[in-house]
């Protein structure tokens, strides 16, 4: 198969044979589908969980007000270097497509990216790199702002997996809150390697 390394030549065969030789009694995998938990107000639940993990949430009622509302956010006002890949929003002053080496993103203060959908159960947003030239931008930016459309909110992870179309994109991730660590004395420090803040904005 794919390997060309000497150490590997017989290992595949011998490992798989050893496993097969155990002849364990077959056991059936549990069924796939599960209803999961449901919420009367999905965005309210999402907001509650997101704020409990240190993220901020904002909902904008009318389409025309989105840009004006975002412009007034402290995180937007105070950021000098911004990248934005959300259509119709013009907050970016750094064009990610013009940057060849992701290492040059070190000065990025704020990244505004589209989120595919939100999950109420755990306050997570699913993000793919569809519109993002550099995956690292999601982690290198000092602050991250995700824009999700209001209809795009599911109750739980089971529904989330049903929405994920795999086989198309090679990369995606759930983001739930700002980056954090508790490695020093079991105490929480917000802003480990990734963004120091996360804002999720739901728009019509």
């Amino acid at each position: 198969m794919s390997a060309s390394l000497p150490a590997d030549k017989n290992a595949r065969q011998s490992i798989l044979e050893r496993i097969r030789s155990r002849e364990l009694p077959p056991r059936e995998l549990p069924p796939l589908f599960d209803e999961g938990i449901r919420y009367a107000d999905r965005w309210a639940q999402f907001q509650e969980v997101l704020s409990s993990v240190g993220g901020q949430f904002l909902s904008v009622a009318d389409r025309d007000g989105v840009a004006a509302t975002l412009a007034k956010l402290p995180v937007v006002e105070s950021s000098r270097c911004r990248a934005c890949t959300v259509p119709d929003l013009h907050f970016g002053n750094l064009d990610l497509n013009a940057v060849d080496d992701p290492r040059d993103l070190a000065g990025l203060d704020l990244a505004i990216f589209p989120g595919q959908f939100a999950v109420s159960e755990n306050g997570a947003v699913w993000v793919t790199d569809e519109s993002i030239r550099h995956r690292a931008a999601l982690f290198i930016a000092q602050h991250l702002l995700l824009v999700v459309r209001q209809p795009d909110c599911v109750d739980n992870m089971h529904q989330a997996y049903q929405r994920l179309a795999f086989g198309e994109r090679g990369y995606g991730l759930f983001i739930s809150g700002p980056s954090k660590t508790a490695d020093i004395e079991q105490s929480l420090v917000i802003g480990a390697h990734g963004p120091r803040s996360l804002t999720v904005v739901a728009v019509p």
Partner: protein
Amino acid sequence: MTDYVRETHREFLKASRAAVADRGLQQILGRLGDTLGRKNREAWQALPNSDAIRERARSIKDATLADLATHLATLENSVVARGGQVYYADDGAAACQIICQLVKERGFQRVVKSKSMTSEEIHLNAALEQAGIETVETDFGEYIIQVAGHRPSHIVGPALHLSARDVARILSPVAGETLPVEREALAAFARRQLRSKFAAAEVGITGVNFAIAETGSIVLVSNEGNARLTTALPRIHIAVMGIEKVIPRFQDLAWFLKVLARAATGQKLSVYTSIITGPRAAGELDGPDEFHLVILDNGRSKILGSPLRESLFCIRCGACLNACPIYRNVGGHAYGGVYSGPIGAVLTPLYDGLAEHHHLPHASSLCGACQAACPVKIQIPQMLIQLREQLHEETPNDSRGESRAYRLWAAVLRRPWLYRWSSWWATRTVGRWFRRQPWIRRLPAGLAGWTEHRDFPAPAPLRFRDWWRRNSREQP
């Protein structure tokens, strides 16, 4: 061999004693019950049907392991179909050789790593360094202990044993200035320091939390964001996993993500859950040029057929450590292996040899707190008993004094007259000497080993036989 066995046993006792006497460490361990331990309990309470959910996660593991070869073959095909490469390694040395060769063949010299217990298990960092490859751990905890030259003391919090003062002392020489004893400042320093390492690295090495057979994806869970930086900046991504990390279907992931973060840190979901499928594909804007997956056996296929197969259900959350009264007293380092706590007492003997680590299955009170905390309900106490039995069968005569004592005991029990006489003699002598204290603190030479770590019950001053005769006469 016997000497070596005694040695590790002594080392364990010595390390435990030192840990118990270390006030700083005791303070840290004492907090565990209020931090991770409490969060774990609260997370199960807050999750509706948590028992059924854990049961489901467990049954997926169980069914997957029953047909493991098929799922591994599917995983391999899916990874290859998405442009990745797959390697198998019989043991740690083989896995290290594969990884070092992948790096060296390309003339690369700088590696960044995200936290991976499997890479600790195979001592990958030492192998890379020996091959002249600069390797930097990027998880904060791992980075701190890498600089300090320590072993991880906890499965999810490798630097748990260190105070902020210790961390400042360890990192100050790297900074070239005295860092303040302040968590935020220390984390900010590590963040700056590691960013430059990310930027310079050619290769990123990660573990695998879950590998999905049907899609060929690997799932990486982190709170800091370092796992993603490790795979986003370098041009090559190498992932290393044990054979038990495969799950059959994409949807199975939902169950494991539900329990993993709750058990590990009490979170509903970790901050970053990345799902990575192969290297950068045509039409994608970004991604590594190459993706290599190293699948490690290292004794696991042997365990698969034994009563200890449940140890392969483990998803490395560390919940059993936080719950364990032994771990919370002696800390992670006393266990002497990469894995500590109750699950370490099972895994270390299995991966590194039962004879060398014969004391670990005994380093437990079998109270069952570990099993109650486990997100996949591994029956750790039963496995520890199993290992004790195995030890007894494999090393029948490891103490001559003990076997002599048992033979003498058996000889006395077989002869009622002798039993009667010796119990009479014992109450008359030892029983009367210890009339006021029911415990013997120290037995004389030859038997002293028994009372080194526990007291011996003194014979009663009056035999039951005599007590019964006296009392049954008084009552009608």
